[in-house]
């Protein structure tokens, strides 16, 4: 299941979206997510759909890669849909024994599902078109003003880089340890919750030890390569805005204004 995790996996392609400055893409993702919370209106969601459609087409990432990221949160989506469907008060629509569905509940549930799906798709586009290094670079540069408040921006960015590099390695390692313990007769599938939790110890202990060993090795390797924090460090891919980036910012601003106008004009109306 972990292998299907789209978040953090880069899809190599030479598209206009791939070439955008990561700061633009970060801003774009943020704006998109904010607009999803403007309200429950068909028009708003048509605007968001148009945005997603255009960005995905431009990125040339196959849709199935973007959809794959949804598999991991199917349960979450279903749960929140059911909660909204049955627990929203309002005008009665259907009565199923002790459960009631209201018109408002139905509307909220539908919008909730769409919102969650769009949220994941929007952020997947970001991680699919931006290498983890560009992403952390973008965050480091885009958030460097936070240094004024003593936020260790460079260090956080470096931690993210390393985390992204080691997630697939640790996933493989977990798989290997599970198999090795199964070969010693371990059973991870049966028993009650307590027994199952206890059965995780033979996986977790070796995994933690391995993670510590790797962290230790990596720290030494970084030191040997003269890493000494952000001071005096240069970048091989310095971030410089191009014409396309400025155009993208303009388009983004236009999208934001459009969505805002729709939201204000429609108020709380659905259609």
């Amino acid at each position, binding site marked *: 299941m972990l292998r299907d995790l789209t978040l953090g996996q880069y899809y190599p392609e030479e598209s206009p979206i791939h070439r955008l400055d990561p700061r633009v893409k970060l801003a774009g993702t943020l704006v998109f997510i904010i607009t999803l919370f403007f309200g429950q209106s068909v028009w708003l969601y048509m605007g968001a759909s148009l945005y997603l459609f255009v960005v995905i087409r431009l990125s040339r990432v196959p849709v199935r890669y973007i959809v794959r990221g949804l598999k991991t949160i199917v349960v979450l989506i279903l749960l929140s849909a059911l909660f909204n469907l049955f627990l929203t008060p309002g005008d009665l629509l259907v009565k199923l024994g002790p459960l009631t569905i209201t018109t408002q509940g139905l509307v909220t549930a539908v919008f909730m599902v769409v919102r969650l799906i769009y949220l994941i798709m929007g952020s997947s586009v970001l991680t699919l078109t931006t290498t983890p290094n560009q992403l952390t670079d973008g965050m480091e540069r885009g958030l460097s003003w936070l240094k004024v408040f003593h936020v260790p921006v460079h260090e956080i960015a470096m931690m993210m880089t390393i985390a992204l590099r080691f997630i697939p390695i640790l996933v493989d390692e977990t798989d290997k*340890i599970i*198999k090795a313990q199964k*070969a010693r*007769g371990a*059973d991870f599938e049966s028993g009650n919750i307590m027994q199952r939790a206890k059965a995780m110890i*033979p996986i977790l202990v*070796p995994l933690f030890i*391995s993670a510590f060993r790797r962290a230790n090795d990596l720290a030494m390797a970084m030191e040997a390569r003269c890493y000494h924090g952000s001071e005096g460090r240069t970048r091989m891919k310095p971030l410089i805005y191009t014409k396309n980036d400025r155009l993208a910012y303009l388009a983004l601003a236009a999208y934001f204004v459009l969505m805002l106008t729709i939201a204000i004009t429609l108020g709380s109306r659905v259609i």
Partner: protein
Amino acid sequence: MIEIKDLTYTYEQGTGYEAHALNGVNAVIPDGQFIGLIGHTGSGKSTLIQHLNGLMKATSGDILVDGTSIYSEHYNMRKLRSTVGLVFQYPEHQLFETTVLKDVMFGPKNLGLSDEEARDRARKAMELTGLSGERFENASPFDLSGGQKRRAAIAGVLAMEPKVLILDEPTAGLDPQGRDEILSLIRSLHETRKMTVILVSHSMEDVAEYVERIIVIDTGKIRFDGSPREVFRHYRELEALGLAAPQVTYLMHDLADAGFAVDTDAITVGEARESILKSLPQFGGTV
């Protein structure tokens, strides 16, 4: 006895990216044999050994252990894992208990044995691997040396008392002494306990020295299967598969080309010595 019948394993079935990790493997492994399994990284040998104790399930084909298919309904997988013991590469990475003894008891306890029985078995296994005594029993597995950790991990599989022992590159990363210790341990398990052993190795010299049968696997198929002497006769074909023969094989061919009446099938240092001495007239040989 293990019978492998037409075993095929396909990755990503039905997605268009099909890749055969195993492609129609057939072999019979009689009880008590010492087998060397060789092939380069990605040849399918790791996939094959994981099938033998049910950790992976074949796409098609069958595996019979003592006459029963392991894919038959209600087959006891846990029992299979105690019959066919599998020691993974770098097995010391699975150690997790607070003491070596407890760690070695993990396998037998999973088989449903009582604490007492499990402890007895663990002690026996530790004795076999040269880790007997209080000193080791109560030590934390993480305080052992590299070679000791590996032997503790092997003891963890031996304590399940398997009839068949499969080891995936058990000497990887060890120095020559650690390697010799592990290999002579495996040899004595085979000789004194009549265990069937399958040794996955990259070292042709080790394989030549220890095993009685070699299976060469490449792109998911068995390419050669026979005694070491027979298999290393094909040293040119082995090279084409990214493998090689022991250094001695090359030496013997050089000598034969130079007109010495040596046995080109010699594959160990001892055999080479005997054969060369016999070929030197000064030492009673004939040219």
